[in-house]
């Protein structure tokens, strides 16, 4: 079985880097078909990379996404593969190729280019602080063990 865990976000923007922190932290434990990847790059490149590799049975995306929840909230859900309209997909492609990195863009563009397997999970963390600098907000810092456990459990099929 092959599982890919993708950390999405920007380094040095505090909570925005939580996905990258997670893949950095768990990468040394990669084995038995579990891979970790720093996805601090754009989805067009990601879809092309996936096309070069053997299929994954599951992909897990993890990153900070602001959706108005309480800061530090961890939400994990299975992706339903429903795409927005063509205009929005193109908007997100355009957004991505101008250098922007975001979990929403990554999932939508990868799905639109038919790069994802059926089994995709998303782990979101509600950020409290995405200003420049290193380290996390206290809210996200307190949830790091939960985030790690959530992601680690999703590597087990």
């Amino acid at each position, binding site marked *: 079985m092959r599982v890919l865990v993708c950390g999405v976000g*920007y*380094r*040095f*923007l505090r909570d*925005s880097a939580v996905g990258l922190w997670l893949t950095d932290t768990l990468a040394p434990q990669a084995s038995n078909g579990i891979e970790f990847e*720093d996805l*601090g*790059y*754009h989805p*067009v*490149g990601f879809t*092309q990379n996936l096309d070069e590799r053997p299929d994954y049975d599951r992909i897990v995306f993890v990153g900070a*996404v*602001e*959706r108005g929840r309480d800061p530090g909230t961890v*939400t*994990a*859900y*299975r*992706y*339903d*593969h*429903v*795409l*927005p309209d*063509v*205009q*929005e*997909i*193109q*908007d*997100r*492609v*355009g*957004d*991505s*190729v*101008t*250098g*922007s*990195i*975001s979990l*929403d*863009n990554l*999932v*939508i563009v990868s799905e*639109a280019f038919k790069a994802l397997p059926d089994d995709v*999970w*998303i*782990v979101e963390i509600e950020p409290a602080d*995405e*200003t*420049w*600098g*290193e380290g996390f907000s206290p809210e996200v810092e307190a949830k790091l063990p*939960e985030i790690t*456990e*959530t992601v680690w*459990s*999703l590597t087990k099929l």
Partner: protein
Amino acid sequence: MCFKNLPIEFDAAGNATLKDGVANPYSYTETPAPTPIEDDPERMRELFARNGAVRRVDFDPVTRVAGALAFHTVVDLENRQVMETASMATLFRGYEIILKGRDPRDAINISSRACGVCGGVHATASALAVEMAFGIHPPPLGIVARNLLLSTEYLYDHPIHLSLLAGPDFSEPAVRETNPEIWERATSTRTQGREEHGYEFMSELMTDLTPLTGKLYLEGLYYTRLAREAYVLIGGKYPHPHTVVPGGVATTIDASDLNEIMLRVVKYFDYGRKTAAIWDDLAAFFYEVNPKYKEIGTRPKSMLEPGQWDDPYAYDATYENADIWARRRWAPPGVVVDGELVTTSVKMLNAGVEEFVEHAFYEEWTEGDQPRFPTDPSGNPLSPWHPWNKETIPKPTATSWKEKYSWSTAPRWDRMAMETGAYARIWAAAQTGGADFRDSPFINSTGHSLQITLPKASMPNKPIEWMIPETWGAFERNRGRAYSILYTAAIAYDNLLIAYDLIRKGGPDAKMSTPYKVPKDHRLGVGLWSAGRGYLTHHLEMDNGVIENYQILTPSTWMASPKDPFGNPGPYEEAVMATPLLENYEKPEDFKGIDVLRAIRSFDPCMPCTTHLHMDDRTITREIISCACGSDGPHEH
């Protein structure tokens, strides 16, 4: 004499000095910015009373993430004019502060993270700055390998912009929606470049620019992939390469690697020719339909490029010899003011740069009259606002279009707003007439054009020629970028041939990198390089083995800049202000802003500025992804 505004003069030997007898030579008096329309309620009321079609239209970032751009306009939809513009970088990245106190070599990997698309050029600009400070330079094959990395990065960047970002604005769905009469005309207009691109009618070409499904869109996607495949053969990874180090490239290459790269590069010979013909046809068609399309995104023909692709036998990484090795680059340094090349001296290009913060969320850093570095390492005068003298002091305040409104500084050369990009690169190369320029059997500079001749691929190998345009605007930027694909492929091919030769001969020239020690004394360095999108410099000051000061100046900082203290707008602001609104709309609520978007996108912005458009209280927002409340519900632990 290349400076009109800075207090610099030249002696008979051509040495630059400050003008005699000027007490505070770089001082200036700030010109207050005009009061924004919406900050003047009386004027606003008067305008609305007179003309109900005056609207505030903001082109906001698509996402909240870093590097984002918001673009504010006030438009008069009745008279089809843009009345006010403000370009706003919405987030502070803080790299300059994060890098302080670190090992200079860390800057290569950390600065590469500044962008999700073109991180490789940041890594290389950083390596150049570090090796100048360290006093080392790569062996010839290391320089050629770096040139190949840059070439493949551009061969990735140009198609991604033209096909995935700019192209859709000229596609069938966009034109049908915003100017149906133009679409109608396209169905009966024959193309001029059928031999190169295969399209009989303009409408067929525009249909294939359609996002996600159009053949040209998908073909562009394929060519981005091809270039990335070539890049990783040397870089290991893209866009954040693993092998870029001070003094060369930390990997080995052999003839079989070069063969793999060559197989991919030659495919751009035909693709480059085809893309040039497509953008020639788009410009010709729209200009024919309405000559005012020449004014979309127009501004003065003032641009700059630091030059790139080093000569493997000339580059020594010293500042002292910078004018010699930089003029031996395949793309020479160049500053173009109002259409004329005013210098190819990279030292004068560097000496002319200043960054101002009157309208940016930073604090002024100059204290007293004397800057920390009154001259560069060769004795040329430097402004207190030069990057080597700059200190990044963030000072967030409320946004005010009259006062401070952006996280971008206002970079200026000789106190003028400049743009930069692939077209600036070929413009400077064309105007040198071959004088300050590395010889290439595949590129000929005539003084008014650039001729490119490559071996035959599938299509006939007749030369193609990019002419310096008479008018300047969005269509010419896109056309210049399209021709730059073949120009870049020619340089990649030239470097591949040199690489084969170096590997065949072996010996010290065929090494990829050079050993070094981190110096502990005080040093300066600068990486003068470019992204596909244009100008990129990294200025470094180090002492005791760590970074004292690090300043990154990117193409989008130049072009998305706010107004400067002299009252001049930044290039985006200036270009949109001059853009006529040629879109076909009957009611204000039908306005899509396509001409404004065409103008901004022609700069190849390295920040999101795509869709999230809101007009007055009518806001079009993006929904979160459809799966946010996923079918399986929250995961339990």
